[in-house]
């Protein structure tokens, strides 16, 4: 069974923006909110050179990395277009206005 962690409300994240969250000693996670209020969570590292994706421009269901403008699909973490690479995604759901993310797997295994 997945452990869900409450990390805040939708309103805490700017529309077409992201906030970061650190859970335990794990890698920083970027939690994105799109223009149509979907929420996605990815490890905050670009598959290219680890650019902080949380700082990119969010458009549609993608984010443009702030360092070299790769486009990353928020749902899959895959680089789009000619670029290749993938950032790990983290399951996330919205419940009664709260945002819950799945406890990262590495953490779970360690616990």
């Amino acid at each position: 069974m997945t452990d869900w962690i409450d990390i805040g409300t939708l309103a805490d994240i700017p529309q077409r923006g992201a906030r970061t969250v650190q859970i335990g000693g794990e890698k920083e996670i970027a939690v994105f909110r799109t223009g149509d209020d979907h929420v996605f969570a990815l490890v905050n590292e670009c598959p290219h050179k680890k650019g902080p994706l949380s700082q990119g421009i969010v458009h549609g269901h993608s984010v443009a990395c702030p360092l070299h403008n790769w486009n990353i699909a928020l749902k899959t973490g895959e680089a789009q277009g000619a670029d290749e690479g993938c950032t790990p995604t983290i399951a996330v759901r919205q419940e009664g206005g709260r945002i819950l993310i799945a406890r990262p797997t590495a953490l779970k295994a360690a616990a």
Partner: protein
Amino acid sequence: MEFQDGLAPAVDSEDIILVPADDVREHLVVVGNGMAGCRAVEELLARDAGRYRVTIFGAEPYVNYNRIMLSPVLAGEKTFEQIVINDRAWYDDNGIELIAGDPVTAIDRDAKRVTAQSGRSVHYDKLLIATGSDPFIIPVPGKDLPGVISFRDMKDVDTMLEAADKGGAAVVIGGGLLGLEAAHGLTLRGMKVTVIHLMDTLMERQLDEAAGWLLKSALEGRGQTILTGANTEAIFGDGKVEGVRLKDGTEIPASLVVMAVGIRPSTALAREAGLEVNRGIKVNDHMVTSDPDVLAVGECVEHDGNVYGLVAPLWDMCRSLADGLTDQHTGYKGSVTSTKLKVAGLDVFSAGDFSGGEGCEDIVLRDASRGVYKRVIVKDDRIVGAVLYGDTVDGGWYFDMLKREEDVGEIRDLLIFGQAFASGGGALDPKAAVAALSDDAEICGCNGVSKGQVVSCIEAGNCSLDAVRATCKASASCGSCTGLVENLLAVVLGDDVASGPKTMCKCTSFTHDDVRREIVAQNMRSIPEVMQLLHWSTPDGCSSCRPALNYYLLCALPGEYQDDQQSRFVNERMHANIQKDGTYSVVPRMWGGLTNPRELRAIADVVEKYDAPMVKVTGGQRLDIFGIKKEDLPAVWADLNAAGMVSGHAYGKSLRTVKTCVGSEWCRFGTQDSTGLGVKIERMTWGSWMPHKFKIAVSGCPRNCAEATIKDFGVVCVDSGYELHVGGNGGIHVRATDLLCKVATEQEAMDYCAAFTQLYREEARYLERTAPWIERVGVDYVKQRIVEDEAGREALRARFLYSQSFSQDDPWAERAAGQHAELHQPLAPIAIAAE
């Protein structure tokens, strides 16, 4: 635009319109100042301008406006002024008497007189009834409560806007075109909207079940609640609307109820006057009623057993009517209607009969990933109906074949892939598609303009989209035919025009220049508005168009535009330069490259306090502090602010630095105070947002130690004054400046600098530095605007300074004071307890 002079004037019953004694023209009186009434008058004027004296009565207190554009007004995309079709001047110029806000209450056919509510009575020779439709109100309890309205005129829109201002919930009864547009507008205005629809399919008269379902899920995705198969039992509330109850007992709270269940021809006046009325006022092929001196046109009429509820048929009617009035006898033959709509930004098209039935074959194409559904209904090798959802480009083609009853046997198998494919080619070529349309194919449904009319308009010398819009009105209303008109321009004018400048990005078919021009022309005020009005193909753009739009709007609306942080590249959002490890560098402004012990101490303190791994003198004569974490930025800025320093904008598409050299104060060769002038110029220009970064330098003599001749604006001081240089660039392709001119005083140097900067701000494309911009427009053009046109220069300078009055607040100070703290802080850190 609401004008009071036509409002219910107090008059005696006599004709108060003063007619010059020698005006012996026949008097045409029009009842109804709406779309059909005024269009009929326009058609008449186009044929024989002087023939009739014209008086128009309108129940609404406005000039003639475009009713179909009420939806964009509700949605906040247009203002009332922008949907006016004929303004006051049109009435005046054509000698038309408009009596607005005074409905006609009776027609006396024997005396040939109409009487209005105010008591005013007017004699007519010919009477034209164009009273449109009345919204149908379902007879449920509570229908008369305050807060229950229909969606028909400007007054209804005003009521909706008022309700939306207060927020809360709204119920829209009716899931047809009108209801959905009302629901969309109210949703955009922030209300929680529920649509109640009696049938199982939304817009069941235009869409089949599959398309209706796609529409429903798309609207639900936008936050509306859609209840199909829902029957309203009552509207309840104490003194005002509080909600709607359905037959199954469900209660939906609402402070506003919009009834949009249908319309009925407005025939009461005609019926009481004894004219022949069935469902609508009966007319013949020239729009003449049972009384030869009384005509009727628009939604209020019934022709050959049909009544219409869309504008396209009205245009045909108005043509036949005007022909009849000017003794040309081409009669109206009825209209087959098609509906091409953007409902809530979704493309929907339907035409003809799609109910299927005996002998009908369906050809269907679904493309789930693109959200496309197409269905063409064929009977005996003729198209009888079509429903398109998501991709409606071929709507006009199907509709054209349907109207001409063309035999499609030969291309039947390819039909569903669209015109370009079916007519050979294979590859999609939209130009070939419009070229193949027949001359009478309708291009612009809103204004009833055919392909032939657009083509002759272009051939008459209107070679741009704007010119076509201004002249024949095609694409001037909802804009959904813009692509067609552009393709026609390309077809008529040849490939030279077609292969113009590149489009802004893959989200739009417009170029940077088009977008900028339209933002100003249509007075657009936000990024979503631009995307909506210019038909962006993506929901919210991409990382290249969003920053550009943000800049264009900011430049067009100084002091008014609400900057969109999320459309800014990270550096401009964080007011610092992002580094490869995700930390930031911080460059405080040092005016003209000058500094002092207090600033140096503050910088030294910051470096120590925040453990900055490096501090460096930059090529722009500033100090750069590296390795600051995003969380620490506000505190760093607070410390620098305390020492009097502000943001250096080393991160922005903005004024960067003004480099100076020592100048006449100290240098043995210096001719003028280059340091002092540099500081003054930096004080004037700092904080300004630009299409790209912008660098200035002032050198004290032609030795040019500040490298002014590779700057966007450079000043080289000489004995007799100041040489002004523009369009230089270091960087990737080095370009030395062009000499703009020489001036005698510091003040002139400043004035020219401000004017040049503003010209660049207003006319360059986003991410185009001055060097490529000047290569593109030519230095002569810049000289003409800045040097030769003195008044123009002064106006540019004034606009720059006006814009600067809003942009010289230090962005660091705002952040240091706590604004946008969320950009710097992670969500609450979560420590996981060991299990």
